[in-house]
C-alpha cells in the first residue's frame, strides 16, 4: 500500500467514525441525567433530518436546520412529558423498554408522514462530487462539517455538565435522584431538559450526516446501535470519549476492511465491544470508580 492509499483508508475510517461519534453524543446526555439509555435517539436524528429536508423546500438551509432542531427539541420534551414522566415506578429497565416503544412509534409515524423514500439534505459546502485533497487522498467536505459540529457540541457540553449549575444538577439526578430532590433540584424538569437537549443535538447530528448517509424513515435503529456501541466503548456519559471512541472504531473498521473481506468489519467491531465490556466495563476512557458507583 502506498501513502495516498493508506491516507484514503484513514479518511474512510474518519468518515464513518465521525458519524458514529456524533450519534453517540446524544446517548450520553440522557444517560448523564437519568442513567438510562434512550433507544429512540436514532429516531430523533431522522426526525430532525426529515424536518430539515421538508423545511428546506421553503427556506434556506441554515434556517431549515435551525427550525428542525427547535422543533425536534420540543418533540423531545413532549416525548418525555407524555411517556417517561407518567411512569409510576421508574426503574431503569422499565424506562429503557419505554424508549424502545417510543422509537417504534416514531418510526411508524414518520412512515406515515414522509413515506418510505430515501431523501437527503444538500451538501453544506460544494456538491456530492467536491472533495478536499490531502496527501494525495480525498475526503468530502461534509465529513469536515460532521467533525466540526461534533467538536462544537462536545466543547459546549463538557463545560455545561462540569461547571454550570443546571449541568451539575442534571448529573446529580442520575447519581441519586432522591438526594438530588432533597437538595432542592427539580428532578422532573432536569429529565425533561435532558430529553430536549439530546433530541436537539440528535436533530443537528441527523442534519449534518444526512448528505453522506441519506435519510430514510427506518434508518434510526441501525445508526443508534452503532452510536450506542461507541458510547459504551468510550465510557457512558463522557461526550469527548464518545468522539474519540467513534473515530477509533471507524479507523479500526477501515483497517480491517483494507486487509480482510469487508464482511469481517462488523464482526471485529462487535468483538472489540465484547472485550471492552469484559475487561473495562467502564469504557476505554471511563474511570472505574465512577462505573462502580453508578451500578449501586
Amino acid at each position: 500500500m502506498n501513502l495516498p492509499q493508506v491516507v484514503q483508508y484513514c479518511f474512510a475510517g474518519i468518515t464513518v467514525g465521525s458519524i458514529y461519534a456524533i450519534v453517540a453524543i446524544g446517548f450520553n446526555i440522557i444517560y448523564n441525567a437519568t442513567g438510562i439509555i434512550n433507544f429512540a435517539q436514532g429516531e430523533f436524528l431522522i426526525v430532525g433530518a426529515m424536518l430539515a429536508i421538508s423545511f428546506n423546500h421553503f427556506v434556506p438551509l441554515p434556517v431549515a436546520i435551525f427550525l428542525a432542531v427547535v422543533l425536534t427539541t420540543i418533540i423531545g420534551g413532549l416525548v418525555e412529558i407524555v411517556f417517561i414522566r407518567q411512569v409510576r415506578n421508574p426503574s431503569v429497565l422499565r424506562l429503557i423498554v419505554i424508549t424502545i416503544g417510543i422509537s417504534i412509534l416514531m418510526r411508524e409515524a414518520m412512515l406515515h408522514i414522509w413515506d418510505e423514500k430515501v431523501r437527503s439534505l444538500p451538501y453544506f459546502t460544494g456538491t456530492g462530487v467536491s472533495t478536499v485533497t490531502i496527501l494525495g487522498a480525498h475526503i468530502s467536505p461534509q465529513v469536515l462539517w460532521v467533525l466540526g459540529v461534533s467538536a462544537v457540541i462536545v466543547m459546549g457540553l463538557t463545560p455545561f455538565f462540569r461547571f454550570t449549575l443546571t449541568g451539575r444538577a442534571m448529573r446529580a439526578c442520575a447519581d441519586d435522584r432522591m438526594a438530588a430532590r432533597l437538595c432542592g433540584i427539580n428532578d422532573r424538569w432536569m429529565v425533561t431538559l435532558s430529553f430536549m437537549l439530546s433530541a436537539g443535538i440528535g436533530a443537528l447530528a441527523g442534519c449534518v450526516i444526512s448528505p453522506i448517509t441519506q435519510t430514510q424513515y427506518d434508518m434510526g435503529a441501525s445508526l443508534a446501535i452503532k452510536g450506542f456501541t461507541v458510547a459504551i466503548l468510550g465510557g457512558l456519559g463522557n461526550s469527548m470519549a464518545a468522539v474519540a471512541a467513534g473515530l477509533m472504531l471507524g479507523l479500526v473498521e477501515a483497517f480491517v476492511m483494507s486487509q480482510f473481506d469487508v464482511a469481517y468489519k462488523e464482526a471485529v467491531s462487535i468483538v472489540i465491544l465484547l472485550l471492552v465490556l469484559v475487561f473495562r466495563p467502564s469504557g476505554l476512557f471511563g474511570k472505574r470508580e465512577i462505573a462502580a458507583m453508578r451500578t449501586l
Partner: protein
Amino acid sequence: MVKQLAKVVEVLIVALALCVSVVAKAADAQAIRVGAIFAVTGGAANLGGPEAKTAEMLVEKINKEGGINGQKIELIVKDSGGKKENAVSLAKQLIEEDKVLAIIGPSTSGETMAIKNICQENKTILLSCAAAEDIVNPVASYVFKTPQKDSDAVRRIFQVMKAKGIKRIGVITSNDGFGMAGGKQLANLANLAGITIAISEAYDTQDTDLTGVLTKVKGQDVNAVVNWSIVPAQSMVAKNMKQIGLDVPLFQSHGYGNIKYVQAGGEAANGTIFPCGRLLIAEQLPDNNPQKKLLVEYKKDYESRYKEDVSTFGGHAYDALLILVEGIKKARSTDKEKVREAIENIKGLVGTAGIFNFTPQDHNGLGMDAFEMLTVKDGKFVIYKN
C-alpha cells in the same frame, strides 16, 4: 301481545340479516381471490410501495371493465415489511384461510425463495416480482417470475464493456439476496465474456458510507466498477467514487430503475450505465415498438393517480397481474392446475418488462432483448448508445 309482536319482528329481522349476509358471501365467492405479498414498509419499501399501488390500480381497472370472464377480482394485499418470516406466515394465511387462486409478489428475492416451496406444495400459483434467477431455476411448476433475468442483465453489461474495451472490473454487492445473486452471476459469466473480476466485495446494506470498500477497489486498478444492490447504497456509490477520485465507468444493476436514485445521487449519478426495462424511457421509444402503447398508458395512469414517478418495480406487479389474467382467460376456468398450464403456454404477451414467451421449462419468459441499456444524462434516463 305487543311484546310478542316485537319478538316476532326481532326474529324476522335477525333472519333477514342472516339471509343478506349469506347472499353477500355468495356474491363474494364469485370473485376470483388473488393474494399479494409486498414489502410496502421496511427496507424494500421502494419496491413494495409502487407494486401494491400498481396492483390496486390495475385490479380496479379490470373490475370496472367487467372483470375476467364475467368474474371480478378480489385483491388481498399483505405487507411483509420485507421480512422473510413475515412472507412465510402471510403466504400460509393466504393459502389456507383466504384460499387464493394465486399469489403476486413478494417484492424481494429472499422472501420469494422462502415461500417458493410452500406455494409449490399447496399448488398455489406464485408470480414473483423479484429478480433472482433461483426463483425459476430449477423450475417449480407453480412458480413464475416477472422481472428480467439477472443473468441477462449481466450479459448485457458485459456486452457494453466489451464494446468499450473494458477488461478488468471491480464488483461490489450488498449482502442481501439480490446482491448475492447478482454477484454470483457476474462471477459465473465473466470468464465467458473475457472479463477479469479483480476484486469482489460484499458490504452491509446498512452501511452509511462506502468510501472504504471503494478505496479497496481503487487499489486494484480496475477499468470499471459494477455495483449490485438496491437503495440507499446505489446512489451512495456514485458519490463516493467521485469523492475518492475513482474515475472509471460505473455500471449498476437493473435495480437502479427509479429516477429518485438519480436525484439522490445528484450530479455524481451522471454517466451511470445500467440495464433496464423500457418503462422509464417509454416516450423515447420509436412508435413501432410493440411495448410503447402499454408503457405510455401505464406510466400516465400511475403518475396521474399517485402523483409520483413510475418505477420498474410497479411494472413487475403490473406484469404479474397481466399474466395471471391472461392465464385465467385462456384456461376459461379458475382451476389452479388449468390456469397454471395456461400460463406456461402464453406466447407473445406484451408486458412492461418485455414480451413474455413462457414454456414449461422457462417460467420467466423474457429474453435478453427485454433489457435496454440506459444511462443518466443531466439527471435523466436516456438510452445508452456506444
